[in-house]
Structures are given as structure tokens and as C-alpha cells.
């Protein structure tokens, strides 16, 4: 396999990383909202949150992606396939992250919240300065794990026509008749990216260790 092909793969990997990073970030925001809904005392709200999580964790991502990719135009929303892919991945990862964050928020020690109330923090401040940082720190390992899962799962968006790493390897394999080398190279690139994320995550965890309750 020539360098030129390998460089094309690395370029396409940029899209894989971009799509995954954007989806993880959007998923974190939606996931926070959903976990708040699940933990809320409002019955309908918490039920809606749980149903969201159950559905997006229960149906295969591939089916979700195919559904969303075809549903958006039916609803009159015409977006590039890249956007549809990000929407699908974000919703899926939001469900997993909501479940993780729920655990994180539930494990914030009560005493800390009482103390926050005592010193006169508003509910808004309590959330941003006490709850959210602690929950995030608690769920950081799970978040990094989820990032790696999404990096791998993003290979499925090749099916809806996004030319990321997997799709590029597929196209090149079809035109050069070298599937063995191209898919092996693509796998290797995924492996390296995942190892880097795992390394970075471990370093991040270490730097977050201060003041652990």
C-alpha cells in the first residue's frame, strides 16, 4: 500500500475524529438534561427521560442512524448526511451519558449540598459550582470510555454516506482491490486514535484527582 493511500486514510480519520468529538460534546449537553429529567421528582419528566435512555440504548445504532437519516428529509429538514450522522450519534451517546451522569449526580454527597445551601448559594450556583463539577469528575472515566465507544461506533455513519475513515477505506479498497491492506490500515488508525484518547483520558483523570471526596 502506498503512502498516498495511507495519507488519504489519515485525512478521512480527521472527519471521524471531528464527528465523534462534536457528537460527544452535544451528547454531553443533552445527556446532562436527560439525567436531570430522570432525577427530577416530576413523574412525567422522569418517565420521559427514562424512555429516551431505554430507546436509544435498546435499538441498534445502525437502525437509529438509518431512521434519522431518512426521517429528517420526510419532516422537511434537508441537511447534509454529515449533520444527520452527528444527530444520530449525539442522541445515542446522550442516552449512555445520561445514564452515567445520573449515577454521578446521585453520588454527590448530601452534606456538600446542605453546606452549599447553608453558605447561601443559589440553586443555579449549587448546580454549576458543586453538583456539576463533582458529577463530572465522578463520571470522567465513563465519559472517556464512551468517547472511545463513539469513535468506534462512528464507523457506522459510513452507511449513510459520510466519507470518514471506514467509508474512505471501503472506497479505496473497491478501487484498488486491496481490501486486506486498506482495512488493516484503517483498523490500525482507529487503534492509535483510541490509544491516544485513553492516554489523554488517564492524564486528565490524574489532574482531576485533587480534592476528591
Amino acid at each position, binding site marked *: 500500500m502506498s503512502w498516498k493511500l495511507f495519507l488519504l486514510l489519515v485525512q478521512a480519520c480527521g472527519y471521524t475524529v471531528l464527528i465523534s468529538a462534536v457528537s460527544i460534546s452535544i451528547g454531553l449537553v443533552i445527556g446532562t438534561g436527560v439525567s436531570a429529567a430522570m432525577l427530577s421528582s416530576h413523574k412525567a419528566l422522569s418517565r420521559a427521560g427514562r424512555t429516551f435512555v*431505554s*430507546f436509544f*440504548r*435498546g*435499538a*441498534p*445504532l*445502525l*437502525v*437509529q442512524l*438509518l*431512521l434519522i437519516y*431518512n*426521517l429528517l428529509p*420526510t419532516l422537511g429538514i434537508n441537511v447534509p448526511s454529515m449533520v444527520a450522522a452527528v444527530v444520530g450519534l449525539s442522541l445515542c451517546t446522550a442516552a449512555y451519558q445520561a445514564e452515567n451522569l445520573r449515577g454521578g449526580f446521585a453520588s454527590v454527597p448530601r452534606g456538600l449540598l446542605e453546606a452549599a445551601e447553608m453558605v447561601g448559594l443559589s440553586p443555579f450556583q449549587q448546580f454549576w459550582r458543586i453538583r456539576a463539577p463533582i458529577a463530572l469528575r465522578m463520571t470522567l472515566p465513563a465519559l472517556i470510555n464512551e468517547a472511545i465507544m463513539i469513535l*468506534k*461506533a*462512528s*464507523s*457506522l455513519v*459510513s*452507511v449513510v454516506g459520510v466519507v470518514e475513515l*471506514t467509508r474512505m*477505506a*471501503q472506497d479505496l*479498497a473497491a478501487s484498488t482491490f486491496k*481490501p*486486506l491492506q486498506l*482495512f*488493516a490500515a*484503517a*483498523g490500525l488508525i*482507529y*487503534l492509535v486514535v*483510541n*490509544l491516544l484518547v485513553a492516554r489523554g483520558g488517564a492524564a486528565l483523570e490524574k489532574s482531576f484527582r485533587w480534592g476528591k471526596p
Partner: protein
Amino acid sequence: MNFDAALVWSLMPEILRSAGVTLGVWLFGVLGAVALGFVVTIGRRYGPRALGIALQAYLELIRGTPFLIQLFLLYYGGPFIGLSLDPVPAGLLGLAVYGAAYFSEIFRAGFEAVPPGHVEAAECLGMNRAQTVTRILIPEMTMLVLPPAVNMAIILLKETAVLSIITVPELTFQISAIGSQRYAFVEAMFLLACFYWGLVSMCGRLGMAAESRLAKFRFAHS
């Protein structure tokens, strides 16, 4: 939304057949993955060092790359090294090799979680190594690994949908074909998602029921 009950009914045999393929591939894929995963765990635990390193490399490779890439490598790359498989066997093999890596890690953790005191007690009672493994380690480990193993089996059920990409005629493949032929792709996909959702929820419930039934065999943690 054009939902035609008579049409769905007329397509029922086809749908049921593909559902059978999904369930069959899943069942045999999980069985293969559990068996292979167990062998890998035993190989890493009791095998020679070189084998342990090779198996470790296998685990890292499988767990660090997407399932889809592994499938493509097997299905499209296989013929170049003399491994020409039809879609269904390729899908089964792919699922088993992929799942085995995760099951192996689950089993490893299970072995490690068995209290060393139990193994020492078995030794004190004069059990040999094989007896310790088959009578103490494996039964206790089975209880410990049940929840994560059920979880992994459910993940593999969802992964069977990916097999549609290498043209295994399972449910996702068939339903998307029907959906696009009949211009009802969105409806078909929605029903499909709900079907998997129901199946996955049911399996989760069954797993929890199994856990609580087997709970009496659990040793006390101390």
C-alpha cells in the same frame, strides 16, 4: 404514514425468516463468543507467557477497532488469504471473535474477584489445581460474571444489525430492503427500532430475573 396491515401480513413469512436469522446468528454468535472468550481467559491465566502476550495483543486489537472494520477485513479481505466465507458464516465468525474479546475480559475480572481465601481453603482441604478450578473458581466466577455477561450478550444482539452491511439476510437487511421497495423506509425503520428495543428490554428483564433466582448461590462477601 402509509401503513398497510394487509401488506405487512403478506410479507410476514419473509420477516419471520429474517428474524429467525437474527436470533440464530445471535444465539450461536454468543455461544461461540463465550466459548472462545473462556478459552482465551484460561490461556492467559494458565498458558505460557508467549501465549499470554499473543492473546493480549488479540484483545487490544479487537477492543480498539470498530466491529465494522473487523467484519470488512474478514469478509472482503479474507478471500485474499484463502478464507472465502459466505455472509452468514462470516457474520457468525466475526461476531464470535469480536464478542470473545469482551467476554474474556469479563471472565478475567470474574476470576480475579473470587476471594483468594476460598482458593486457599480449597488447597488446605487437599484439592488439586484442577479441582480448585472446576469446583471453586468456575462456579463462584459464574455468579460474579452473570450481570456483565448478560449485558454483553445484549450488546451483541444489537451488533447483529451491523451484519446487514455484509449482506447477512437478517432482520435489518430484510426490513430495509422491504422498506425501500415499498417506499416506506422511515416506517419500516421505526418498527424495526421498536422491535429491537422490545427484544433488548425483554432480555434485560430476563437477565435480572435469572440473577435474582441464582442469588442464593452467591457467596457472602466479606
